[in-house]
């Protein structure tokens, strides 16, 4: 029965990974931006939350919309300046620029916040509160809330992309920028909006992570980035629900690995990622193969 509990834990952790990954699903899956700074952006979101709460002493729930708004603005500005310039010059340039951004962010955070671990206080009651599923399985409330939040964000994002005007425009610009320009679409603005949305979700994910766990300036690349990419790739590029599936697969794999040997926890995730990259790079849900 211990296994069932672990599977459930794994699924819930998958929700957190999916939350990290939805921004990436938009940036990487739709806009084809390989953003190596993605994990660090989540950490930036967490630090913004920490900073805002420290300065204004607002209840932690209020920090969420504040972080999302600030991150959205950051995303729009970064996309229209740095990232678009990089995209215009090719994939290699985008890789190098976002990698550089990652290092600058990490070391900048270290300069200003030191390397101490920090977290967002949610009150010890929420952190430890749990409910019993049956006599042997106990589930924490916070992981469940985060999982539900991930599902909601994915639903909203899915609707945004498939049914709204801007979602359509984002997909069009991602498909064929020139053809979109010919239809009167301001491609730079549209991609700016897409980045704003992606950054808002990654900020939310960062705040959630800061609540559930703690962050350091290097958590972005140590823990988050590769797992976010893993969720997107395993799930299949371009599919938001695939990202949830990918996150769940990752979370479950890690829990199972941890059960075999506690030090295998992270390794299991990477092995699964590598396996998918080598054997089925288009992921679990995609119909088109990776280009």
């Amino acid at each position, binding site marked *: 029965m211990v296994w069932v509990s672990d599977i459930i834990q794994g699924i819930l952790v998958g929700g957190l990974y999916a939350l990290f990954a939805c921004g990436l699903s938009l940036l990487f899956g739709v806009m084809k931006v390989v953003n190596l700074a993605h994990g660090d952006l989540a950490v930036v979101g967490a630090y913004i939350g920490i900073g805002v709460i420290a300065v204004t002493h607002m209840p932690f729930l209020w920090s969420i919309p504040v972080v999302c708004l600030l991150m959205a603005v950051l995303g729009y500005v970064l996309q229209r300046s740095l990232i678009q310039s990089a995209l215009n010059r090719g994939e290699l340039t985008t890789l190098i620029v976002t990698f550089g951004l990652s290092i600058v962010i990490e070391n900048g955070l270290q300069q200003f916040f030191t390397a101490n671990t920090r977290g967002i206080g949610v009150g010890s009651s929420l952190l430890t509160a749990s409910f019993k599923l049956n006599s042997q399985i106990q589930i924490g409330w916070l992981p469940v809330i985060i999982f539900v939040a991930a599902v909601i964000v994915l639903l909203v994002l899915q609707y945004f992309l498939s049914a709204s*005007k801007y979602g*359509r*425009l984002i*997909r*069009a610009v*991602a*498909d*064929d920028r*020139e*053809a*979109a*320009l*010919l*239809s*009167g*679409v*301001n*491609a730079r603005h549209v991609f700016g909006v897409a980045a704003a949305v992606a950054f808002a979700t990654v900020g939310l994910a960062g705040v959630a992570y800061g609540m559930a766990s703690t962050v350091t300036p290097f958590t972005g690349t140590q823990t988050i980035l590769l797992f976010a990419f893993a969720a997107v790739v395993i799930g299949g590029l*371009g599919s938001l629900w695939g990202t949830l599936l990918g996150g769940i697969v990752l979370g479950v794999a890690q829990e199972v690995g941890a059960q075999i040997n506690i030090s295998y926890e992270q390794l299991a995730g990477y092995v699964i990622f590598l396996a998918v990259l080598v054997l089925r790079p288009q992921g679990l849900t995609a119909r088109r193969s990776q280009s």
Partner: protein
Amino acid sequence: MTTASSEPSVPASTPLLEVRDVTVHHGQLKAISDVSLQVSPGQVYAMIGANGAGKSTLMRTIAGLHSPTSGQILLDGNDVTRLRPERRATAGITMVPEGRRLFPSLTLEENLKVGASYARTGPWDIPAVMELFPFMKDRRKQKTAQLSGGEQQQVAIGRALVANPRLLLLDELSLGLAPVIVQRIYDVLPQILESGVTVLLVEQDVAQARRVASYLHCLLEGHTTLEGPPAEFTPEQVEAAYFGMGGTH
């Protein structure tokens, strides 16, 4: 077939589109050298010429995707040379690009909706376009990759039309399509013209161009070699301008 235009082919006093001494470079290669033209409202203005003559480059420059090295482009007398391509669409120039260039991850209807995102006011909306190309009504939810070449071309035209342009640029409509299909597509030209849209098209098939155009303009290696109403030229003269022959056979 008679020419599609109902207007005289003599340029009116204020041309809708004027291209003045435009030179365009591709890197170091001079693709267009000092080309000028004037398109009057209601015309069907056809650019003809061999591969590499510069026709598509000129179209793309008019649409705003290339910047001319020198020269001017005027729409209704206003200088639009430096206007970004997305602003030209709202100013009244839309283009059906070479190769259709539909959005593959969008459905037929969504492609049209994108075209309509920043549309001007006018007679063309999505229902009107679907009347023009009736096959669309049943296929609106299909991904465009599943359409045939001719159907894709019609969607591309619809997407450009739905923005209610004043000048519609058609780049190599017939590329990769069977002549029968091409003819059927060109058959809608009269309806488009009736709604007040002027057409500037690029066509490699000279016979097809002569059938539909009210004015021919031939390019060779970036230079103008012939221009005027098609009736003024014998097929031999057009051929000579097309291939740039000095008269030898």
